[in-house]
């Protein structure tokens, strides 16, 4: 016998637990399996031929330039994650605790808006500031200081990555800092925790999920970003996404690109799972 309530319960559970898995099964699992399979294909005469061989894997895993790109990408992503989190956190604190409600809404709005202007456009615009004879160099020479162009330097890369990720980090962090129970802060003060320590003793642990998830997204974004390394890094800093583009240039070597992708996915998946586990771990 199926009772009315059990139908309604199934309906309710189903409504929430089915859509995303269903959509993903239809439109994501397919591509992702295809991608994985692709990494074992051959390329003959500039055409990909389905097959199963490990050559692509051997080739990539055996290439020095792959590993150097891999380390470089991880380091940049990690650096950006730390940098962005460090910049975003004081800002989130200010927004959450030091601003009146209306100012908070305005500032959060202002932080979201740039997001709607294509990232490509914004990075392109950064070139104007950083390049030789760019705005910054001109400004400095106006006050009598000569500086080198900043384009194609790690600094430029970080500027690009931070442009990409900062709004996201601030928003995620703010959500999590704002919903923190204020009485916990008072309780900590009451136990002798000064305003300097309150951040490390209460706010950070309590807002940990937000901070970590924010940093994770920053990591993911900058790990896979192609635009900044290309347009602000001058292609000099081969990251994995640039390497993918390069790999493809040896005549339709998509299978090798797939290998790199799979490695990237695995790396990010491990990072993601570790950081989520850490974020939601109690204590």
């Amino acid at each position, binding site marked *: 016998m199926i009772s009315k309530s059990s139908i309604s319960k199934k309906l309710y559970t189903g409504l929430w637990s089915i859509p995303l898995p269903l959509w993903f099964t239809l439109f994501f699992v397919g591509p992702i399996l295809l991608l994985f399979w692709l990494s074992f294909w051959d390329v003959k*005469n*500039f*055409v*990909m031929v389905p097959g199963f061989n490990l050559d692509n894997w051997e080739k990539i895993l055996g*290439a*020095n*330039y792959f590993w*150097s*790109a891999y380390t470089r990408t991880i380091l940049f992503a990690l650096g950006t994650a730390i940098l962005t989190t460090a910049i975003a956190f004081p800002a989130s604190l200010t927004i959450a605790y030091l601003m009146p409600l209306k100012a908070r809404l305005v500032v959060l709005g202002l932080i979201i808006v740039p997001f709607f202007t294509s990232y490509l456009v914004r990075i*392109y615009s950064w*070139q104007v500031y950083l*390049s*030789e*004879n*760019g705005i910054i160099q001109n400004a400095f020479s106006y006050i009598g200081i000569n500086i080198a*162009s900043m*384009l*194609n330097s790690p600094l430029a890369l970080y500027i690009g990555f931070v442009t990409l990720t900062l709004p996201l980090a601030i928003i995620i962090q703010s959500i999590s800092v704002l919903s923190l129970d204020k009485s916990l802060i008072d309780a900590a003060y009451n136990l002798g925790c000064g305003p300097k320590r309150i951040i490390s003793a209460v706010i950070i642990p309590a807002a940990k999920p937000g901070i970590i998830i924010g940093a994770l997204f920053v990591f993911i974004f900058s790990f896979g970003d192609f635009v900044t390394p*290309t*347009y602000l*890094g*001058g*292609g*000099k800093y*081969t990251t994995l996404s640039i*390497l993918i*583009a*390069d*790999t*493809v*240039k*040896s*005549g*339709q*070597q*998509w299978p090798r690109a797939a290998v790199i992708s799979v490695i990237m996915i695995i790396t990010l998946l491990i990072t993601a799972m570790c950081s989520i586990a850490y974020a939601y771990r109690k204590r």
Partner: protein
Amino acid sequence: GSPTTLTMLAWYGQAEPDAVEEFERLYNVKIIPKYYVGGEQMIALLAQSPPGTYDIIHADAEYVQQLAAANFLEKLDAEDYPFDDFYSEFQNFPGHWIGKDLYAVISRFGFLGISHNLDVVSVKEASSYKLLWDKKLKNRVGHFDWHLPNLGALSLLNGNSSPYSINKTSWNNLKKTTLSLKPQIRGFYDYGGVLSSLKNGEVSVIPGIGEWITGVLRRDGANVTTTIPEEGGIQFTESFSIGKNSRKAELARKFIQYMAGEKGQYRLANLNVFPAIIPSKKGWKRMIAEKPMEAKHLGMFNGSGNAIDLIQRGRIHIRELPHQQSLEDWNDFWSEYKGS
């Protein structure tokens, strides 16, 4: 009635109004372009799209070979196109024929040598690729981020008479030569990057590119030019083909015919996106008559030293896929070089 549509997979600019408006009017068609940014992605896109999605395909010669090999192109009938009017070098352009079958009609071409900022480097200085190692150019040399033109140019410097067909020793030498250039390099740029870095002075010299870049910059007032060094230059070509299973093959043929004709050629030589040399004699005439300055810069003038002359004198080598090494080897080396 409302115009029929014609789809075109092309490098940016080939379906902009300055190129196609007249054709569209004449035949009451609307050309819908799909612009691509890299040949590889273009081929991948074609490979994964249903056949017949794209009626016209615009590509560089290297990719025509790949496209034909992969059976993405319809065969063409040479009779349909005004090859008689083309300079002889382009009547039987190697990359476009596979055996007896024609797959593409050349639309325009250009030479790659050393592009340089005239404020820093004179034409005379640019007469040899050795310039690249010049002390004053430290950290002032840029690369267009593609191995074929760059390695081709340096291969010429190394004295290889056919730059893309080199034996193992020469290949190793080429690698050495290339790696020794790395300290001079400021960056590896895509099209846009090349343009802006030359323009704003970030780099002073870029090998392996040509008038297709400097021509654009000059229009914007930059003091730059391209010099073909004594060691020789590289040639690139663009062409039109008809996509496999195109349902509008007839119209596509009309389009190619139009582009190979005088009016089309004249337009192509002056494309907003970047100028290039055209293979049509009638086109040359009109260029020389109407835009002598531009024509001169591109090498379209009468007399010795013009584009055809350079080709005939053996100064120019067609950009090709490597013969004795695999494309992969070259590419891998390029990755390694960038990462070094």
